[in-house]
């Protein structure tokens, strides 16, 4: 209790909080176990589910192969979730991340298959396009003052349309670099390369978000944009940068998507990729640093949903289960993170 020294001050009008209900958790004080539960609850839950499924399905769930499937399929979701999280830190939605990734996957394949570009050229071009899409979204929000949720819903639709136009609604499954497809199935020490790359990107994102002034300023804007402006944050520039980061990450996710699936299929991703990412980001905000979006929490959120769905599928549940799990997790997660946020605000 560091505050005790000042409490004894003779001039003090009253002991802290005497006029209002005392608040439980300003850790490190207060109900320590409660705050530990909040921080690590999701992790404990994941471990419990893994143990349960492993006992139930020892031959199918608890196998290297199953974990490789989970790892490589979730690595794309992780990148998309990170793309969603960065602008969300400043309280701005980017619902176009799924569509950007989908278009990026199609373009990567198309540029190689149709235009004969090599892998490196195609990937760099697609990343630039991702940044540009982010820039357009960012300008719509900052320069033209549109609501991010609506603006990016609009751009998502436009991107989906663009993809249909570009692909003539046909899959591209050959004619592009075999290296990329091989990479999608390659492993290192039994870990899929896709997962390694995704975790590296997550590591960098986590560093930028938590350890740099950029990340801290994003969080400040998310808390109060007028107050951030008055402590010297160039809010518009920062929000634009966060949308560009989002676009770039989503495009990178698209490249991984192509590697993972081995073909670019129109109309399959869009909202389908967005929803699990949204659920993971909000689940992440209910753990690790509760009430705030964070990378570790987002990874845990993804793993939780993936593990649940994997077990259910192995148990013979129908395919609609994964949709229900994603949606249900999203609702629970949004509820939980809103509750944490309310408590932080002292309401």
């Amino acid at each position, binding site marked *: 209790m560091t505050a005790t020294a000042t409490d004894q001050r003779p001039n003090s*009008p009253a002991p802290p909080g005497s006029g209002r209900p005392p608040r439980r958790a300003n850790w490190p004080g207060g109900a320590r176990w409660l705050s530990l539960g909040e921080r690590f609850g999701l992790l404990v839950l994941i471990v419990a589910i893994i143990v349960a499924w492993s006992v139930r399905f020892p031959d199918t769930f608890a196998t290297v192969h199953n974990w490789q499937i989970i790892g490589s399929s979730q690595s794309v979701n992780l990148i998309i979730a990170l793309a969603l999280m960065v602008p969300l830190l400043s309280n701005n939605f980017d619902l176009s991340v799924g569509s950007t990734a989908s278009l990026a996957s199609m373009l990567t394949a198309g540029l190689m298959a149709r235009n004969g570009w090599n892998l490196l050229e195609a990937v760099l071009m697609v990343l630039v396009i991702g940044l540009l899409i982010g820039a357009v979204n960012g300008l719509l929000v900052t320069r033209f003052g549109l609501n991010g949720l609506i603006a990016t819903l609009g751009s998502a639709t436009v991107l989906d349309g663009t993809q249909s136009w570009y692909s003539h609604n046909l899959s591209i499954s050959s004619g592009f670099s075999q290296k990329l497809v091989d990479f999608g199935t390659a492993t290192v020490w039994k870990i899929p390369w896709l997962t390694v790359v995704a975790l590296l990107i997550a590591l960098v994102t986590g560093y930028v978000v938590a350890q740099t002034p950029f990340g801290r300023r994003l969080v400040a804007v998310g808390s109060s944009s007028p107050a951030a402006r008055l402590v*010297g944050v*160039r809010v518009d520039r920062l929000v634009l940068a966060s949308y560009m980061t989002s676009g770039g990450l989503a495009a990178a996710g698209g490249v991984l998507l192509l590697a993972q699936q081995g073909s670019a299929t129109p109309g399959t991703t869009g909202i389908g990729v967005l929803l699990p990412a949204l659920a993971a980001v909000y689940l992440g905000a209910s753990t690790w640093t509760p009430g705030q979006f964070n990378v570790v929490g987002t990874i845990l959120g993804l793993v939780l949903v993936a593990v649940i769905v994997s077990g259910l599928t192995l148990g013979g549940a129908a395919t609609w289960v994964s949709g229900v799990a994603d949606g249900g997790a999203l609702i629970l997660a949004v509820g939980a993170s809103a509750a944490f946020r309310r408590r932080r605000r002292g309401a």
Partner: protein
Amino acid sequence: MTAVGEAQSPRTTAPAIRVNAVSKTFGGTRALRDVSFEVPRASVHALCGGNGSGKSTLIKILAGVHQADSGTIEIDGHVHDATRTNPGWAGSNGLYFVHQAVGTFPSMTVAENFAVSSAFGARSLAPVSWRALHRRVQKVLERFEIDVSPKTIMAQVPPATRTMIAVARALQYEAEAGRGTLVLDEPTASLPAEEAQAVLDAMRGYARRGHAVVFVSHRLSELLAVSDSATFLRDGQHVRTCDAADLDESSLVQLITGHAPVAPSRNTVGTDQAEVRLRLENLAVGSLDDICLQVRAGEVVGIAGLLGSGRSTLLQSLFGVRPARGGRATLDGVELTANDVPAAIRGGIAYVPEDRAGQAAFAELSVRANLSAPSLRRYWNRVWLRRAAERCDAQSVIERYKIKVDGPEAYFATMSGGNQQKVVLARWLELAPRLLLLDEPTQGVDIGARTAIHQLVRQVAAAGTAVLLVSSDPQELVDACDRVVGVHSGRITGEASGADLTVRRCTELGHGLGAPSGARTPTSRALGPRTPATHPPTSMEPRTS
């Protein structure tokens, strides 16, 4: 305690409210200890105490939001168990609550504002009869002598009138004149002096009609001016209930804080010789024109002006929030960069905005993050943010500024208003600014924290900072400033310093009465004579953009 219920002739002589031995504990904290007092009918009763003294808890028990642990509440001679209050109970016993600025809808008309709370008996899906509604509201408005049309949009109604409309809405069904007790929680907190005066006049009016009025305010002068009696709470305990006539400003401070008031600390070393830091030459910004002003190092200059006089706009322009239309502003001889907040901060300017919750606070972030917000670069070693140093600095600020909080990682929103304001101030003072701009630095802050904040401002001035302070409270201008300039009708209209710097003089300056007032005695008892509304109606524009 049983005798309490046996008041002889309840309707006539019993007090409007008698609170008897009410106690309340939250967790381990005793918020109220055995508090007893009574409020006579047809009078205004002030409920006084610092932040955390228990007055909000008491009001919440009366309103039925919280339930007491023990005690009784007697209303019009009927004894009620204070452990079983609920919101419905309060309403059916004639207790009405009006919270500051809460509960009116700015984009709806006055009549619609009445209708949302009551629907005038109509079922929720039945068509609304607009003519009947307007007639009905017109009658209520007339009864309460409020001079607006039911069709006016609420946002266009002056803030004081909004408060009165909220009161009229609460009391509209009290058919029997003088029944009912009105509880007003800081009704004047966000109002400038002349608007506040209108609310205070209205409160006297309710009391004349026989209502009992209980009100909370941090403004000492209005506590003295308007109330008949007052109850003081400190640390959850009842200190005293007495007639307002027995009180003066210093006994009031003594009763609220438990200490004798600290004399206003003027600048003792003359600043006449000090270098001029801020120089405004014919500056034109917002509704202001031709502003010429010099602030020397170590000087605290106050700006008196009405709501919408452009006083806040001036500060915002100096901080680079909005551009000036013309003229020059220099700090230590260097021209200020227009419209660039980061440049202003780099140039040594600090700004504490008026609206703490909306423009200064990161409510759900930690105290540490709130403190380091403008100085993140200090902790950036090009590879990572030095969190340990950041936390250590925050801890040091908490100790040096005597901020009451559970440590650097506690959330900003969990602190009381006074401590929040200290954090906002400390955020800037730690940067050792050359120019400090303060807009209503002690609004909604209790007297103890207020004195502490004034001392901090004085300290930073003593270190050579030039300070510009805007306040709608003339007492604050007198307490905190070396010199006060009046801003009215877009110009600087007058100036007061030294012995001429009195509450009355500051009030006059705010109203554009520039001529020196001669040898009048300083008065803080009332806010001067009722000043006629000499200001043009343009003073209705919102304070901040």
